[in-house]
């Protein structure tokens, strides 16, 4: 896989041009009788940054949990790096997960370990590397995210942006093939957001990763993503490059990209007749 230069807002259509590393076919998934996905089809091409966007509550994080095997699909196929997620046993799933890294929304750092030990954690758990080598690897990854100077701090001493960068260093310390970001920009100031954006692009290109980014920050993610999937109502409503998405005439896409309060995704949650409910007496 050849590293590619920074191509902010690329308009090339890469979708399906390379072998997909994640393939989802006719996926059905429901929680407590509420259908989250129905017949979902998604392909994540290898070596690219693929953004999965959609309104809140549309199942973006659930999709990541399905891809990583944290939950099982009701029906349909999920292939990740050639492995059928529905058939994988626990031990095989753990082997596959060593080839993945995941950045959680809040970083999910282990609060009783220092920054250095957090990044070293997967190495200590999975390898017998000598301490000197672990130290070099950890410092290299911390340098990559710009936080080598914070190695001795505890997670409680870090800002939100720093926590996410440390978590990113931890996610790449085992040199994964797939890096998954769950809402990486939530609650970040513009500078931290810019840093994370830059890291997503740079790590993807220099380490030859496949990146999957779940986000609803349209402008930010469009500046680094190669491909975008827009989910709504449990289905893919649009896919393509960020520019193709911006030019998509569909109402749902227009509403989401334009940030319109009302549209196919209604402003009001389904409810009984307003006047009738206000006039009703003595009944709750």
């Amino acid at each position, binding site marked *: 896989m050849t590293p590619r230069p920074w191509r902010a807002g690329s308009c090339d259509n890469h979708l399906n041009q390379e072998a997909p590393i994640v393939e989802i076919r006719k996926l059905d998934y429901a929680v407590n009788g509420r259908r989250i996905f129905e017949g979902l089809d998604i392909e994540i091409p290898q070596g690219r940054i693929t953004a999965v966007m959609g309104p809140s509550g549309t199942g973006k994080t659930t999709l990541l949990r399905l891809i*990583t095997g*944290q939950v099982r699909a009701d029906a349909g196929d999920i292939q990740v790096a050639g492995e059928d997620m529905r058939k994988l046993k626990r031990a095989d799933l*753990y*082997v596959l*997960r*060593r080839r*993945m*890294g*995941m950045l*959680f*929304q*809040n970083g*999910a*750092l*282990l*609060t009783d370990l220092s920054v250095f030990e957090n990044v070293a*954690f*997967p190495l200590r*758990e*999975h390898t017998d590397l000598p301490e000197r080598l672990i130290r070099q690897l950890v410092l290299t990854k911390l340098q990559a995210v710009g936080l080598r100077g914070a190695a001795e701090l505890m997670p409680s001493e870090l800002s939100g942006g720093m926590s996410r960068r440390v*978590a990113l260093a*931890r996610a790449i310390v*085992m040199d994964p093939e797939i890096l998954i970001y769950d809402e990486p920009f939530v609650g970040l100031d513009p500078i931290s957001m810019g840093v994370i954006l830059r890291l997503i692009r740079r790590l993807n290109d220099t380490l030859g990763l496949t990146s999957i980014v779940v986000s609803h920050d349209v402008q930010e993610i469009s500046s680094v993503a190669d491909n975008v999937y827009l989910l709504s109502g449990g289905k893919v409503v649009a896919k393509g490059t960020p520019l193709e998405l911006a030019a998509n005439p569909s109402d749902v896409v227009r509403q989401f990209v334009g940030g319109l309060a009302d549209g196919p995704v209604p402003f009001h949650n389904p409810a009984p007749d307003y006047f009738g409910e206000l006039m009703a007496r003595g009944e709750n």
Partner: protein
Amino acid sequence: MNVLRELWASAVEGLAGLGAIVRFLLRLIVLTPSALLRFDLIIQQVFNSGALSLVIIMLSGLFVGMVLGLQGFQLLQRFGSEDSLGVAAAIGLVKELGPVVTALLFAGRAGTALASELGLMRATDQLSAMEMMAVDPIKRVVVPRFLGGVIAMPLLAAVFSLIGIYGAQLIGVQIMGVDSGSFWSQMRSGVDLADVNEGIVKSCIFGVACSLIAVWEGYHAIPTAAGVGRATTRTVVTSAVVVLFLDYLLTSAFL
């Protein structure tokens, strides 16, 4: 009919819950040999559950022993047998009060700490992050905490009984004037190894019960502030009821 149906549903739910917790215990036991290979993690948890509970255990042991000395002296004096205070206090502490009160205090101090720590780890995605790093959180986090509690409990019960006997001696001998020689010699001749064994068995079983309840509640806590709070409360309440129930069963078994 509705009442019967609800009772039946509750019974089935209760049994399912019991089955789930037994399966969880079996999983902990299966993972114990591999967890023992990383003994440093267990030592750390023995420190967290045991050493950090020492002050409350020692203080409580001292006061319980002192009350036992006072009450025992008052009672035995009526029959002119206050010299037997030593044996009465020792047997009461070693067989009963030591294991039971230690278990109740353990549930309140270490059990709640375990449950809230695991619940917060769940709420802040730390357990999910471990899963994603291909690290089994039960093996890495839960088993060392469980074993730490199981090891710490008999040690704490022993400290409680020891300090309790000192407290009884402090009141009985130093203040009430019971003969020191009679106090200690009657204790030596009156307390059998079987009495000590009963205390050890009880504290070990209470250790398993309290640690299991704490890690179960914490690991399965609903990942919200209210969920973690509820898990912590349930740890104390369930542990207290289970310890007293088990105490009755074990006491009858040892008779």
